[in-house]
């Protein structure tokens, strides 16, 4: 697992944590109307908060190349395939 750089680990770990907050049974803890924030039910606030957090994390991921070093070489030249279809 050496390829999991600290930054990459933080991005993927943070992402997993937020999905757990939104989609695991933890969501049932937020399944309530009160306390309302600015007149908005708590369940909606909870979802919007974690949505915002993960969207921001995706922005950080983009800006940091998803935790990978900037690539130095290019290997993407086409090569023929046995199942060539186009």
């Amino acid at each position, binding site marked *: 697992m050496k390829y999991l750089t600290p930054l990459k680990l933080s991005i993927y770990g943070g992402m997993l944590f937020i999905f757990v907050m939104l989609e695991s049974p933890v969501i049932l803890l937020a399944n309530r109307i009160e306390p309302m924030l600015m007149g*908005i039910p708590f369940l909606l606030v909870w979802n919007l908060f974690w949505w915002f957090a993960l969207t921001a994390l995706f922005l950080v*991921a983009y800006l940091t190349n998803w935790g990978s*070093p900037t*690539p130095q070489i290019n290997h993407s030249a*086409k090569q023929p395939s*046995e199942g060539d279809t186009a």
Partner: protein
Amino acid sequence: MTGSLLIIAAFMIIPLLVGVLSARHSQTTSEDFFVQGRAMGSIAVFFTVAATWWSAFAFLGSNATFYTNGPVFLTALAWNLLFGFMYYWVGKRVWFLGKRFNYLTPSDLIGDFYNSEALRLSVAAITLIFTVPYLQIQLTGGAYLIEVASGGLIPFWLAALLFYFIIIIYVWIGGIRAIAWTDVIYGALLFFGMMYAGYYISSQVGGPAALFSQLQQSSPEHLTMPGPNGNMGYPMWFSLFVVTAIGAFMGPQIWLRMYSVKHGKLFNMMPFLLGLAAFAYVGSVLSGYSGVILEPDVDNPDQILPIMLMEYAPYLLASLIMAAGASAAMSTANSQIHAVSTVVTMDIYKRYINRGASQARIVTIGRFSLVGFSLAAYIMALTVPGVLVTIGIAALAGTAQLLIPTIGAIAWRKAHPTAALVSLWSGVACVLLMTFGPLSAPFGFHAGVWGLLINTVLFVGLSHALQRQDTAVVERFDQARYDYDAEYHPERLPAHGQESTRTAIH
């Protein structure tokens, strides 16, 4: 009324013109017609992926679900984020392999990696069978909106016919390039429409805070799970998250939008952009919940937004927002028609009927397939009734099953063809039996979730138990994966920071 008809006419004609104009850049090759020569830029990619992904299901179905079943559709915020992440992680690898081995369809990748004609045909069949019902709901939703916006002057059957007539013209001429260009318009209209409809309709009850306060007094069960009918609790919350995101992502229309991308780096920012766009669902929250206060007795919940717009908004504004809703439907329908015609042309016609077909012949077959599938979906829209979300989820549960063999193909050298075939059909059978057959889905989770579970267990178990004999294919994909890592994830290479010789990634 004249103003509304003008809006509808503009809604029909402007995309037609844009599509026709875009066709001036087209070339007469199948790669250009189906995947824009793998040269689609960032703006077109974002809008065409987002507008294709957001359908009548999102525009009308979301309002209907908040109105009828309470907050379960809030899980859409998370499924948009999951969709975005998959577009990055899976999509970028699919794109890389597609570019290297010249793939055009889902079957190309899966059939090539597993070296199996049975899998190739299975994938083609599953994409076709489960995409057509989803296509039908786009037509139903979009045509209904046009009918309402015109005050009934354009009946449903005519609206649906116009709908497909226009799509066929510009896709016939310009292929996926025309779709991508028109999707920029559709996408912008769609997000504006969802947000503004929510803002405007909720202002009729005093704004968002007043809306929630009134709802808390009159119908608090709408604000928490399991909703007013008591059947939309956590299992459905999780099921919608899994099935919708994965099912839509595995649709052939999204596959083509992976293959079409020009640069790999475009995939890196898509999770952020697609996640950000999900904020538009707040508009649906406000519209759907306002309906509970303003129009509590609507029989068909899919009609709640158009009914409120006609009742409470100025006619022109209502027509404009409904045109935005029709955009959601059209932008998905055009992509689906194009995608299924690609599957038929490449996976069936070119592979099994006419292997030596010329580029011009392939494009012609693709165009006639457009017409055939449009006609099938049109007939279904006129004859098959159903609620948008119900049909949509069942169709998505089927295509979702393709994720497992796809992940095997892009990331796991031990993935075995027999395992992929058995697990894929087991997952599909589970979905069909639990949706239409005698079995019921246990614990309230959707059939699609159980299908994915069975699919995964069988796939992993059988792949471990069986041994692949076709080492040349496995090695070819190992090399491709190695090159992918070298280009985008150099830290994964064994000798990161130094020149290294080719090493298989196991």
